[in-house]
């Protein structure tokens, strides 16, 4: 074969490959834009102050998703408050302290596997362990605990990966100056792996926001009005009102989306809920990124 034909062929391949890559990028973007556009197109018209700030009323015949919004936010906050310290702490222990490499490898393999399990299995665990065995019944706290178990592998892995990207030379530098181990981790390792926590946090929130199977079985399906502590309640009896809140049962946004779409065939409301979910995800991701930058700087 002559060299010219070879290089011509290579150029043809090059062009072909580039076109294919462009095409996949274009299709991906188009799908995404279409999806978001379609949801907003169908959902935004149905958004109203009444929808967002009231509960559904059968008597008045009005629809409102305030309880679902409350439940969703509460489940997110509770899950993150528990899973972050747990996952980050475990990741720090496994990467910085544990000396038994084989055990660490086994745990990493297990978490890898756990993070790929369909969520309905976690729902089962939640029902058996939290709702039944621990007598929590269908409550926000049972749901949050189940979601903690579900998101723990994700948070653990992403934190571990980010800890591993911190150069060993930083650790040696700090220890060489006479820093204790925990001081070294707190002042040098953790600030350099802040991106990992933010990613872990975003992934976890994403799974929580998008989760429906677990919440259906562990938090419940009610779309009725919810207890929500007033400022005076919170000030006067903070523990009691938070406990009351945790023991509430009811549908979250994803669950009520399912209920409206599937059981009541009310697609207008379902799309409005979808729009709210989209907006919520965007807001939370922006918040997490902002918090990460703030923490990194201080």
């Amino acid at each position, binding site marked *: 074969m002559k060299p010219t034909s070879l290089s011509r062929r290579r150029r043809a391949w090059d062009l072909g490959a580039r076109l294919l890559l462009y095409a996949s990028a274009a299709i991906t973007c188009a799908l995404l834009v279409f999806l978001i556009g379609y949801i907003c197109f169908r959902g935004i018209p149905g958004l109203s102050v009444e929808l967002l700030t009231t509960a559904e009323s059968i008597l008045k015949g009005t629809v409102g998703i305030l309880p679902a919004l409350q439940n969703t936010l509460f489940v997110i906050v509770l899950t993150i408050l528990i899973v972050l310290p747990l996952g980050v702490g475990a990741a720090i222990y496994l990467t910085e302290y544990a*000396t038994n490499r084989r055990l660490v490898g086994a745990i990493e393999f297990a978490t890898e596997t756990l993070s790929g399990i369909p969520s309905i299995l976690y729902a089962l665990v939640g029902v058996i362990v939290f709702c039944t065995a621990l007598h929590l019944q269908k409550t926000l706290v049972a749901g949050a605990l189940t979601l903690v178990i579900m998101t723990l592998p994700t948070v653990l892995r992403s934190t571990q990966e980010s800890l591993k990207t911190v*150069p060993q*030379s*930083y*650790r*040696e*530098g*700090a*220890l*060489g*100056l*006479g*820093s*204790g181990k925990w*001081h070294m981790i707190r*002042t*040098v390792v953790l*600030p*350099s792996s802040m991106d990992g926590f933010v990613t872990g946090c975003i992934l976890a929130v994403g799974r929580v926001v998008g989760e429906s199977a677990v919440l259906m079985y562990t938090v419940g399906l009610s779309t009725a009005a919810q207890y929500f502590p007033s400022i005076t309640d919170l000030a006067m009896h903070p523990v009691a009102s938070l406990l009351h809140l945790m023991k509430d049962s009811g549908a979250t946004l994803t669950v009520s989306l399912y209920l409206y779409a599937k059981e009541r065939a009310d697609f207008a409301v379902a799309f409005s809920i979808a729009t709210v979910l989209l907006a919520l995800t965007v807001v939370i991701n922006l918040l997490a990124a902002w918090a990460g930058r703030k923490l990194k700087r201080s």
Partner: protein
Amino acid sequence: MPESILSAKHLDLWYGENHALKDVSLDIPANRITALIGPSGCGKSTFLRTLNRMNDLIPNVKITGSLTYRGEEIYAPGQDVTALRKNIGMVFQKPNPFPMSIYDNVAYGPRTHGIRSRIKLDRIVEESLRGAAIWDEVKDRLKKPALGLSGGQQQRLCIARALAVKPDVLLMDESTSALDPISTSKIEELALELKQNYTIVIVTHNMQQAVRISDCTAFFLLGELIEFGNTEKMFSQPAEERTEAYITGRFG
């Protein structure tokens, strides 16, 4: 010879099955520069890292024999490793400033050891940067990230960072091998100046460097200390044939 500040007696070290230091006995004199030379893999870094217990970070290391700092056993069970490392500072092969500002890098050690006063920290930072001959280059950008400095500046910053905790001994593991000749000679000059107040132990694979700056030289081969003595004497009339072979470039 002046009094010795670090002293090894029949020191052996194993990495698992690998016998990396064999019966090393060596007295490092105070306020002098001691060079550790030898072919790659002969145990220079290993020996250096036993002096401030940086080997503690590596699993399965076993050490026997005696190693003292000012007469105190470095590997004694009750030894305060933090205090030891404060006294015996280290500068690594590759510059490793933290991803923080220049100021915070230098202040890291003093803060770690409990100094909070802004005035004191300011003074220590300036003194240390001057001590490491980099003050003039960075005094206008102390709040800028240290990672924006050149390699040679980063290494002098690391020296400043080590000086900031007021050590007594400075260990340098091939600390100029990643640098250009001009930065290297700056750091060599710096070492010569610092030896008035500090004891310095350097690992180098550069024999000209050992001759230029060190007072004593230790030659290692396959984990053994072959020869130790006055640098000038060792390079002019080595006592051992293997030393001569190495310094004349016949192996390694």
